[in-house]
């Protein structure tokens, strides 16, 4: 066991040299690399934490929006249901109104048709009744009936007002004709002549004529006036009255 002073000194120098070399080429680079990596990892962790925080914030925001959306959805649904119900009521009321109007129109139309039909029926009945009456009266008409009708003519002349009778009398001075279908018996002619002279003009001398084609009855004709009481005129008046009555009933029914 020997100790060499130069070797000891050289080994101290060698160790210090190795210390310097390793410090320069090993420890410092390694520690710097580790520190850099740690910083990078810390930065990455910080970034990850920031991103996680941002993600959490986004998640919370999303959840809040989801809750708001759910609440809004409920309110929207309630509002939509109310609107639908209101619209349904509106449409139902509108439909009821339209149905009522249509029903009213239909009923009015039906009533109108019924009225028209009734009027038509009544007209047709009246027409047929008149035709039947006319034919029956024509069939039943004879000289005796016309004689009775001459009395009726005189009765009608009596019912005329004074002015009308004067107008008729002035017209009769220019000529007066008594027209019948059948020849009047002589007594009836005299009664008529006497009656006309008393009612119109004492100097009146009527001319008696017959016309088989005319309506049964008696007609007083002057050049400007005509006074008739025939079955046709009677039935025509009756038909006019009947028509007026039918129309007035139809209008009152409407």
């Amino acid at each position, binding site marked *: 066991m020997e100790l060499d002073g130069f*070797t000891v000194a050289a080994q101290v120098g060698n160790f210090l040299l190795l210390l310097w*070399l390793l410090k320069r080429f090993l420890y410092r680079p390694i520690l710097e*690399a580790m520190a850099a990596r740690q910083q990078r990892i810390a930065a990455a962790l910080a970034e990850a934490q920031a991103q996680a925080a941002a993600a959490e914030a986004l998640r919370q925001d999303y959840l809040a929006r989801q809750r708001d959306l759910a609440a809004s959805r409920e309110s929207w649904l309630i509002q939509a249901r109310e609107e639908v119900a209101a619209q349904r009521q509106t449409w139902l009321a509108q439909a009821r109104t339209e149905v009522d109007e249509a029903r009213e129109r239909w009923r009015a139309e039906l009533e109108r048709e019924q009225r028209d039909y009734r009027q038509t029926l009544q007209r047709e009945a009246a027409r047929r009744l008149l035709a039947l009456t006319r034919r029956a009266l024509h069939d039943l008409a004879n000289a005796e009936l016309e004689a009775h009708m001459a009395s009726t003519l005189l009765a009608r002349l009596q019912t005329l007002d004074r002015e009308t009778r004067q107008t008729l009398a002035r017209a009769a001075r220019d000529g007066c004709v008594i027209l019948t279908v059948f020849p009047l018996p002589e007594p009836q002619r005299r009664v008529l002549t006497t009656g006309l002279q008393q009612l119109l003009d004492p100097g009146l001398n009527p001319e008696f004529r017959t016309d088989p084609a005319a309506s049964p009855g008696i007609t007083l004709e002057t050049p400007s006036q005509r006074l008739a009481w025939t079955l046709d005129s009677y039935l025509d008046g009756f038909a006019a009255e009947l028509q007026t009555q039918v129309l007035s009933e139809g209008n009152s029914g409407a």
Partner: protein
Amino acid sequence: MTISPDQTLLFEFGFVRINATLLFTWLTIALLAGLARWITSKLSTTGELSPWQNLLEVLVEGAQNQIRDIARQDAGPFLPFIATLFLFIAACNLLAVVPGYEPPTGSLSTTTALALCVFCAVPFYGIRRHGVRGFLRLYLEPTPLMLPLNIIGELARTLALAVRLYGNVMSGGLVVAILLLVAPFVFPALMHALGLLTGLIQAYIFAVLATVFIAAASAAQEQTIGHSQPRL
């Protein structure tokens, strides 16, 4: 058969005596520095690490943790010194299995030089941390009467450091040499394998003791407040 590589003289000029210890020391230094330079020349701070960089980072971080655990303070200031001690001694001891290589740690001059470095490092770090007066006050603790014993303790532990390492390494090599004469098969290989283990353990012990001595000097001021200073 030589006991110490100091006895293998390669070159002599005056007092300059270049022996095998210095030669293998330089070779070891060149190997360590070259490896460190080669590995750290392509360090990566991003992406995947190379296996060598990973190994170096494990070593450096392991050394940091060991120093922090032992010294109970920041490992930064001590790391280069302690880790260099460990790497140098471990490299010398492990390279002992290479035929023809004589570990410099088998030289008392080398171990003495390393112990002297530790001897100087203790006041260096102590003064750097607490100042000259604060450090010198350590030798008067717990009473000024302990000053001679403290000084003897400093010298003794330096001597113990040097002799312990020298003795272990030198004896390991000597045992292998003797076994080669007695039983040339199997046993030398086993002893070499055992030498690898003991070599690493010796490097670890040397580094740990150096850490303890330096840390004790650095942390002495805090410890004198409530506790007695540990002495190793």
